[in-house]
């Protein structure tokens, strides 16, 4: 029996372990190696990607499996490390290893010559390891640990260029914003532990489904878990960190916008969906937050002039779409869109990085016509944009169609109408970005622009190829594979509504057409529209003042509270209470020392009074 035959699902834990080991090796020994050890994480994630195929093969032949080892046992509490290899986690393994691998390879070119690049690749390895552990986790505690480490990895990567004030602030903002959600998540996890006696996810489902937890507890716990997911997946009103996070290097954005960080929140809700389904109110909340985020971020993506910022709002918008899908019980569709979007968005950010690296520009209006100088980047970018706009037969078309179907079946027409409108919007803003950056006349100061080296374009091409083809996993391929929804969540075979698909497609094409008329031919003047609705436009370009509101709260409430308590502690508790007591003692002593007169008759008087007093007490009280 060849060696390969023995590798199966029980090897799944090796995939995150490889990257974790790579992190430590690179940190410790990287300085002695060529390129500060950058090849170690790349090799680790490559091996992980290879292992993924073995795990997938074994999963398809022998079914899901789980393994665990005891970590802490204390009294009757046992906490185990365990991995859960099922279709959801293996799908995520595939996405994460694939995207992380290509992003790291691309980084070999992008970060060439960067001092401290060993640390950069180590942080990539940490992020990948944490995310891979997260998707495999079979208990909530393990999941939380990986969850927090994903946050740490993103913090380190976003703040990699820490000398730049903006990057340092963006990293801090990302950490603190998601941390607020994490507080909720941790409370939710402990609440579930208290009511079920276990961190184990399947045990929790079992207890919850058999009525072992009260409805109220389930609802509260699900809301708390969702709070964590909202933070990580940048759902309104926690979305503010993601646009700022583009201050990190472009490949970092590619990673955290597709495979790690933001994917973690969607994954959490997907993983815990059986629990959420027991709380219909929370499902409605998930759908509502998702829908609102989908629309809200879509409108902002339309007016951003910074390329990466526009892409960031597009990410937030699509994450909202995934949440909407989950809230509409469309698990398969949500994960399908996570994969489809992840591949496309990683590519778009890598493409944006390629553009910015060559031209030094970040504003889209400073670019233009770049397809002449950077054909590979331009073609792949168009493919990624088209995929997200939902043009068939690209991946985004299939996934969005599946989501709309779920929304129509489970959430009704009101949700569907708004979602369709936002879908047209996302086609429009994608068209805008693509047309403004790559089409039209070439700007004079971009004449020197040229295509990026192979190490960067090959990942782009591979991602573009995947974005082109991955949509076909939606379709049934035979008796054993009835489409992705059935594969992932037993949702039954592939199906679609002709009128809904036609409508979705028509809206997407209308969005693209509007974009073409506005940004290519100029039949519609976006400047005039902006002037006519200047009030609305101003609100939108200022990102609806959400950031300013938060900044105001931080400055005038949070920090003010800190300053107040610090002052209170010093002036009231210490200077008044503590020093005041000391002063009282001293002042009393100053007074009381006059009792020490040195005159015998004073002492005699005091003594006799004392004796008389004692006698009186004895006589009146005790006798």
């Amino acid at each position, binding site marked *: 029996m060849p060696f390969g035959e023995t590798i199966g699902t029980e090897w799944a834990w090796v995939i995150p372990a490889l990257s974790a080991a790579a992190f430590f090796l690179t940190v410790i020994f990287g300085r002695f190696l060529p390129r500060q050890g950058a090849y170690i994480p790349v090799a680790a994630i490559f091996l992980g990607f290879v292992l993924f195929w073995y795990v997938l093969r074994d999963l398809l032949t022998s079914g899901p499996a789980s393994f665990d080892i005891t*970590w*802490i046992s*204390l*009294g009757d*509490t046992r906490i185990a490390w365990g991995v859960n290899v099922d279709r959801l986690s293996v799908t995520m393994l595939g996405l994460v290893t694939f995207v992380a691998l290509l992003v790291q390879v691309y980084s070999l070119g992008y970060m060439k010559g960067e001092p401290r690049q060993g640390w950069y690749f180590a942080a990539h390895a940490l992020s990948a390891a944490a995310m891979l552990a997260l998707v495999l986790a079979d208990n909530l*505690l393990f999941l*939380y*640990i*990986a969850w*927090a*480490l994903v946050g*740490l990895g993103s913090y380190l990567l976003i*703040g990699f260029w*820490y*000398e*730049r*004030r903006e*990057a*340092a*602030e963006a*990293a*801090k903002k990302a*950490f*603190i914003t998601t*941390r*607020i959600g*994490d*507080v909720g998540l*941790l*409370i939710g996890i*402990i*609440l579930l*532990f*208290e009511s079920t006696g276990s961190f184990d996810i399947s045990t929790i489902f079992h207890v919850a489904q058999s009525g072992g937890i009260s409805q109220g507890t389930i609802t509260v716990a699900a809301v708390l878990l969702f709070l964590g997911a909202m933070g990580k997946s940048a759902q309104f009103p926690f979305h503010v960190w993601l646009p700022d996070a583009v201050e990190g290097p472009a490949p970092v954005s590619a990673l955290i916008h597709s495979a790690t960080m933001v994917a973690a929140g969607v994954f959490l809700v997907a993983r815990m969906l059986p629990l959420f389904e027991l709380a219909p109110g929370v499902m409605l909340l998930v759908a509502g937050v998702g829908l609102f985020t989908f629309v809200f971020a879509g409108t902002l993506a339309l007016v951003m002039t910074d390329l990466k910022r526009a892409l960031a709002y597009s990410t937030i918008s699509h994450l909202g779409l995934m949440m909407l899908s989950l809230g509409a019980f469309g698990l398969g569709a949500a994960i399908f869109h996570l994969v489809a979007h992840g591949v496309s968005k990683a590519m778009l950010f890598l493409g944006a990085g390629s553009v910015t690296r060559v031209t030094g520009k970040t504003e889209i209006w400073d670019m233009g016509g770049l397809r002449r100088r950077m054909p590979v980047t331009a073609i792949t970018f168009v493919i990624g944009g088209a995929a997200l706009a939902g043009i068939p037969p690209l991946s985004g078309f299939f996934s969005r169609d599946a989501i709309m179907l779920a929304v129509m079946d489970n959430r009704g027409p009101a949700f569907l109408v708004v979602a369709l409108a936002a879908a047209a919007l996302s086609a429009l803003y994608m068209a805008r970005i693509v047309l403004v950056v790559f089409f039209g006349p070439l700007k004079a100061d971009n004449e020197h622009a040229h295509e990026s080296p192979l190490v960067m374009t090959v990942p782009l091409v591979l991602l573009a190829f995947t974005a082109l083809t991955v949509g076909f996993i939606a379709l049934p391929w035979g008796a054993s594979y009835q489409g992705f929804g059935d594969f992932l969540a037993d949702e039954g075979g592939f199906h679609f509504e002709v009128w809904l698909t036609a409508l979705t497609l028509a809206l997407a094409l209308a969005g693209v057409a509007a974009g073409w008329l506005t940004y290519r031919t100029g039949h519609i003047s976006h400047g005039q529209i902006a002037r006519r609705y200047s009030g609305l436009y101003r609100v939108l370009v200022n990102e609806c003042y959400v950031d300013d509101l938060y900044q105001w709260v931080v400055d005038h409430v*949070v*920090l003010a*509270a*800190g*300053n*107040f*308590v*610090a*002052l209170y*502690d*010093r002036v009231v*508790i*210490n200077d008044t*209470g*503590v020093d005041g007591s*000391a002063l009282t003692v001293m002042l009393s002593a100053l007074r009381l020392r006059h009792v020490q007169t040195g005159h015998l008759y004073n002492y005699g008087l005091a003594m006799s009074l004392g004796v008389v007093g004692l006698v009186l007490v004895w006589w009146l009280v005790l006798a």
Partner: protein
Amino acid sequence: METFNSYVIFAIVSLPLAGAVVLVLLPSYRPRLIRWVATVVALATVLLTFYTFGFYDPEEGGFQFMRQWSWLELPGPWPLGEQGISFALGVDGISALMLMLSGIVMFTGVLVSWNIAERNKDFFILYFLLLAGVFGVFASMDLFFLFFFYELAVLPMYLLIGVWGSTTDFRTFVRTKEYGAMKLTIYLVGGSVLIWIALLAIFVQAGLGTFSFVDLQESADFPRTFQQVFFPFLMVGFGVLAGMWPFHTWSPDGHVAAPTAVSMVHAGVLMKLGAYGILRLGIGLFPEGAQDWMPVLVVLGTVNVIYGAVSAMGQRDLKYVVGYSGVSHMGYVLMGLATLDHLGVTGAVLQMFSHGVMTALFFAVVGAIYDRTHTRDIAVLEGLAKRMGVTASLFAVGGLTSLGMPGLSGVVAELLVFLGLFKTYPLLGVLGIVGAGITAVYILRLMAKVFFGALGERWRDQTDISRLEGFSSWVLVAFVFLVGLFPFPFIRAIDSGVSTLLSRMAGA
């Protein structure tokens, strides 16, 4: 081996004392020699504490490595009067861990004090006396000697801060080293008055004619009302030392005034003495009194957590931030103790260890920054990571530990505390987790300001932390990771001690 084992605790307590005596005999114009002697003594001590913790058998539990010398017999009306006061040493799982913590902090403290120029002989003498007192408290099984060592630990502190400390001018107010030293000493002596009253009351009420902890715990029967009256004496007396709100202000001021190594011992170990006293004497001797008073303690602990964290956010001085962060983290210890729950108390003790190592790391790093920049003002420090990369990394490890990053020690301890709290006081548990969130805010703000961003013009020529200081910090970092990644040996040892203590609870 048997003989060695029965003397090892004695060696741990007496090595610093012996070191102090040797240092007295050395000429003060040989600072290099003094340094080396101090380092060797500290190294020997820390290795012995590793030995003790490593060979403590948690399966067997109870007190081990015991040794007893009768010191004062008290013949009289009491049935067991012959035992009286004895110099009895021994450790259980909890105190073995605390000895190891003290050993680690002592050793690293000596290393960061390597460059003390002014009167380093006197410094190390007092430093060793202080540590002897600390070791004595953790290792004593006799209440009289426990108290004796407790007092021994407090007094050298006064001189160490008063002589080697620093006065800081904050423009709107000034904190002199004399002020810090005096406040600290008066506070701790005040606390010890309460403790001494409680100890004498215990002695008289038990009527056993002995100060032996084990005898008192097993044979004495304290009425519930007696416990209710005297538990607060221990709770407040030791609580002062643990930085319990509102008796905490000595601690940040003391940290700011103290030299680096003393801050490390002070925050890293001395504050743990207070929590240890509440656990060992308060909960150990007065289980019922503890049960009645725990609602008060848990509320005070919660106030510590939130109040400390919010105050830390409003500080401008690095040491004040770390000091208030200590107040906040000691709150978790108090909360954990107050749960009287297996997980909660175990978490509290682990938090004592974790915070001890972490805060020692913080003070070592802040000390290194101060030595170079001569300021701790957050407003003027900027972008230091560019020149002080290692320093920044070390601080980041401490910061991530304190905000509860998995893989580092803090989160394990805090998680156990939270699990205990959700069983007993779930709403306060929620506040505890919120406190951990606030910690993230002030730590990350501080790191972004001090270490990141463009390098401040004034700090163009800064040098990074030296190899020696760096070494001592990496030792602490190693323990932070050790507890974070492999907490089980630590938890098992603590658990063996906690089980014994909690088994005496009513209804347990």
